[in-house]
């Protein structure tokens, strides 16, 4: 095999060893929808009408808290024969909504970071937004 042919064959041999993938759980949370929720006014019934069924309900004495979440994981890697490099970056959108004993919203906490998940290599920095 000539050197030129070998050089052309090399990328073809190594290309199948590279991959990227993305996993998601649930659907992304929407900032606009969350900002529509008003502590002291919005009720649990209105929340479920807007956001659907919560993914978890936690009882806090006579009060409750609802969790909504979305998770995305981005993986990137490559292998050279038996050596492989893999990076996995997982970020979440989360919202916790706290209700009083009358099912009226009292507090809202939200973090929308799933979009910041990055494809990277193990030696690269994964940065915050």
């Amino acid at each position: 095999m000539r050197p030129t042919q070998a050089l052309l064959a090399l990328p073809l041999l190594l290309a199948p060893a590279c991959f990227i993938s993305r996993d998601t759980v649930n659907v992304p949370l929407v900032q606009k929808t969350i900002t529509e929720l008003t502590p002291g006014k919005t009720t649990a019934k209105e929340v479920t009408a807007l956001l659907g069924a919560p993914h978890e309900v936690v009882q806090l004495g006579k009060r409750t808290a609802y969790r909504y979440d979305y998770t995305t994981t981005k993986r990137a890697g490559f292998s050279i024969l038996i050596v492989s490099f893999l990076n996995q970056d997982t970020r979440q959108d989360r919202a916790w909504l706290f209700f009083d004993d009358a099912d009226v919203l009292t507090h809202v906490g939200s973090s929308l970071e799933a979009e910041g998940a990055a494809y990277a290599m193990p030696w690269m920095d994964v940065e915050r937004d």
Partner: protein
Amino acid sequence: MKLALAAFLALGAASCVSFRFDRATVNLPPRAGVVAALVPGKSALDDALAALGAPVFVWEWKGDGMALAWGWSEDGARGVTLSVPIDQGTSAQASYDDLARHLRGVVLFFDADAQLVDAREGALNDFRAELERRRPAPVE
């Protein structure tokens, strides 16, 4: 001939034995000083939610109180891996819990008036074992 045999063995072994350089990141820690700025006896639930965003876990604590946990991790690994691919399906709830299993972070404890009374750091799974109590709650 020997070279061909070596190449064949290397290619065959690559499907189940490999030297791996892995890193897995879950969420990112808060910026320096954010947690320290939340002071028991002074800060409230609103302050914590504004500073740290939504927690990963919320647990009931001492009746009308609550414990909120924020967590993150960055794990790096190098080594030899022997793997046998097996198809695996999980529920969304199992996935969320599994994800949080290896997180370290901070847990803030609030009283019935939503005032911060304590802050502790550690592995969230240890706090889960201590604090989690599941019981059904009505959803209309």
